[in-house]
């Protein structure tokens, strides 16, 4: 029997088995940012250790950075302090820092691929759970905690238990107005928010192969919301085409060697899996969340579940809790629920193709007067490219604010926040209680085009109806 990509890459990166049974795994690419990493440098210093392979770590600022007024020092003195701490650590240890001055700043999971740092067949670690994004290239990419950031800095290694591999095979074709975001919301809805615990998800099948690289990133990004720490797609010609010419991608003679390596690590046709799940893309509709975790999702045409539909007491009380928080009525359509805020951005859906796709439909339309709408490009590269195509104008003319890059209202550590119990149609990845900055703020996750439809209607709407697909 053949091997899957996960096992191949894992074995290649195994340094040794540790006495407790974990693997000491070599990390090929380490990405750091201002929120979970500065503390790790403190831990290093306390232990008298230094950075082992500084050239394999890259830094940027994304979580806390303001997206409007970026004059230094930032108005938020704590944000200023964190960014300074990261910069100083990078200087001290010789780490490349893609800060605003570099012109390449952006959300860590957007700039890694954009720069060609993320490559097939490598291991990636970052102190952020959406590191799974990089799996779109056929990398094993893991979100880690700060103590582990310290481990990678000090040794370029992690101590990890091997994951099982579940192949999620998606056949068929997506209908118009249905996107990668809908696939992953559907996967999480089907397998549950902790269904992936202990697993790496391999996404495969015709519907996945048909996805462009940026869509694959959206898909892999939210693996963690289904409990799977790792999600990946086998590299193919689309992957190689995306890599070509990127600043850190292999060049000239090295290119052919690289492609040969990338092909070699793809799952064998007869590869072994611990589990296989089959889904049909043609059955997936534009999907929205109705509750307080990403698994609480329905198609936009479905009714919000009522507590009676729960199959156990625990489940019924979960539905009740979610409905109460979301101020939604069970058994009623989600469509037509008025929104206050529309947010397009984040590491899930803040890439050029997301803004392009929305612009196609938004052109000539207006955001409803009751809605505050925010478009936040995922990186300075995305912003520049969109602006060169006039996409920013389309958004501004429609009534969106067009911001500077950062995580922004995905987690609202910067000034972009919901106020009170505002309801936000959001292209981000988490609808947890309080996630978007207000302890009572409410989030409905959906694809960027669905966010645009909701912004135009002033309420949750089926983009296929609003934009006439």
């Amino acid at each position, binding site marked *: 029997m053949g091997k899957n990509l996960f096992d191949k890459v894992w074995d290649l990166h195994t340094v040794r088995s540790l006495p407790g049974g974990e693997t000491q795994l070599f990390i090929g690419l380490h990405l750091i940012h201002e929120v979970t990493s500065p503390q790790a440098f403190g831990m290093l210093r306390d232990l008298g250790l230094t950075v082992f392979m500084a050239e394999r770590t890259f830094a940027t600022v994304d979580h806390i950075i303001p997206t409007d007024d970026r004059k230094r020092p930032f108005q938020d003195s704590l944000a200023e302090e964190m960014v300074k701490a990261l910069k100083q650590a990078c200087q001290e240890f010789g780490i490349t820092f893609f800060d605003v001055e570099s012109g390449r700043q952006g959300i860590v999971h957007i700039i890694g691929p954009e720069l060609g740092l993320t490559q097939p067949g490598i291991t990636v670690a970052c102190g952020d759970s959406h590191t799974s994004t990089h799996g779109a290239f056929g990398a094993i990419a893991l979100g880690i905690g700060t103590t582990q950031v310290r481990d990678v800095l000090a040794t370029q290694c992690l101590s990890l238990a091997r994951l099982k591999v579940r192949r999620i095979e998606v056949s068929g074709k997506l209908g118009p107005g249905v996107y990668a975001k809908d696939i992953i919301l559907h996967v999480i809805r089907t397998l549950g928010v*902790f269904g992936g615990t202990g697993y790496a998800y391999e996404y495969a099948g015709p519907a996945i192969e048909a996805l462009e690289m940026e869509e694959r990133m959206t898909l892999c990004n939210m693996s963690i919301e289904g409990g799977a720490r790792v999600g990946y797609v086998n590299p193919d010609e689309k992957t190689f085409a995306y890599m070509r010419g990127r600043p850190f991608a292999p060049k000239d003679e090295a290119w052919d060697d690289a492609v040969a390596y990338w092909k070699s690590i793809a799952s064998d046709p007869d590869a072994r899996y611990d589990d296989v799940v089959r889904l049909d893309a043609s059955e997936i509709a534009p999907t929205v969340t109705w509750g307080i975790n990403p698994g609480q999702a329905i198609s936009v045409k479905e009714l919000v579940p009522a507590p009676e539909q729960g199959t156990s007491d625990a489940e019924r009380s979960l539905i009740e809790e979610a409905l109460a928080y979301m101020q939604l009525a069970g058994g009623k359509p989600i469509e037509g629920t008025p929104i206050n805020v529309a947010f397009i951005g984040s590491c899930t859906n803040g890439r050029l193709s997301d803004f392009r796709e929305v612009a196609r439909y938004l052109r000539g339309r207006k955001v409803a007067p009751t809605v505050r709408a925010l478009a936040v490009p995922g990186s300075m590269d995305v912003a520049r490219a969109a602006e060169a195509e006039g996409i920013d104008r389309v958004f501004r003319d429609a009534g969106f604010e067009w911001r500077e890059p950062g995580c922004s209202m995905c987690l609202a*550590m910067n000034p972009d926040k919901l106020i009170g119990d505002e309801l936000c149609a959001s292209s981000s990845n988490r609808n947890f209680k309080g996630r978007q900055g207000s302890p009572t703020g409410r989030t409905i996750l959906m694809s960027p085009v669905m966010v645009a439809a909701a912004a135009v209607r002033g309420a949750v709407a089926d983009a296929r109806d609003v934009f006439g697909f």
Partner: protein
Amino acid sequence: MALAKIQKIAGRAVHVPGEDIDTDRIIPARFLKCVTFEGLGEHLFKDVRFGPDGTQTDHPLNDSRYAGATILLAGRNFGCGSSREHAPQSIAKYGFKAIVAESFAEIFFGNSTALGMPCVSVSRAELDRLVARVEEHPTTLVTVDLLEQVVCAGVDLRLPLRIKPSARDALLNGMWDPIGQLVEARDEIGAVAARLPYLHFR
């Protein structure tokens, strides 16, 4: 590095109800603005412990009957969501020494273990018994015994616990922080770096 061997943790317990409690709930993002983890304990569960006007809610952590508890009881998939280590750090800094739940999210479990804070699982039925006991008698002494692999409450309740064997070994042997082992293998790390094709493409 000599680390404490964590074999048995005994103390009073408090139950934080709910399933899929995510790390944003445990420590809201606005408290992540810090360059060290000091002082995070006071922000634990902030938005459910305090109302918008700053008044205390009826959250169990505000209930004086449970003051000083060192064992946290929780439901299914505890610690899901963001990988922020601020979450286990805030739990530990608040004063908890162990967590008993039906299950844990993976990154949270690893982050907690690396801090020497055991996360042990018991079945739903047993969790319910444990919670009922603690709510009835908040002064019940609860013991998380990694050696015997049981959670005990009072004199009669003895519940089998589950924990990943490697995490259990690491805690029992005082090897829960892997850094010591990782740094030992410098030569092997170099050998892996030498054989990885992509490190030599440019």
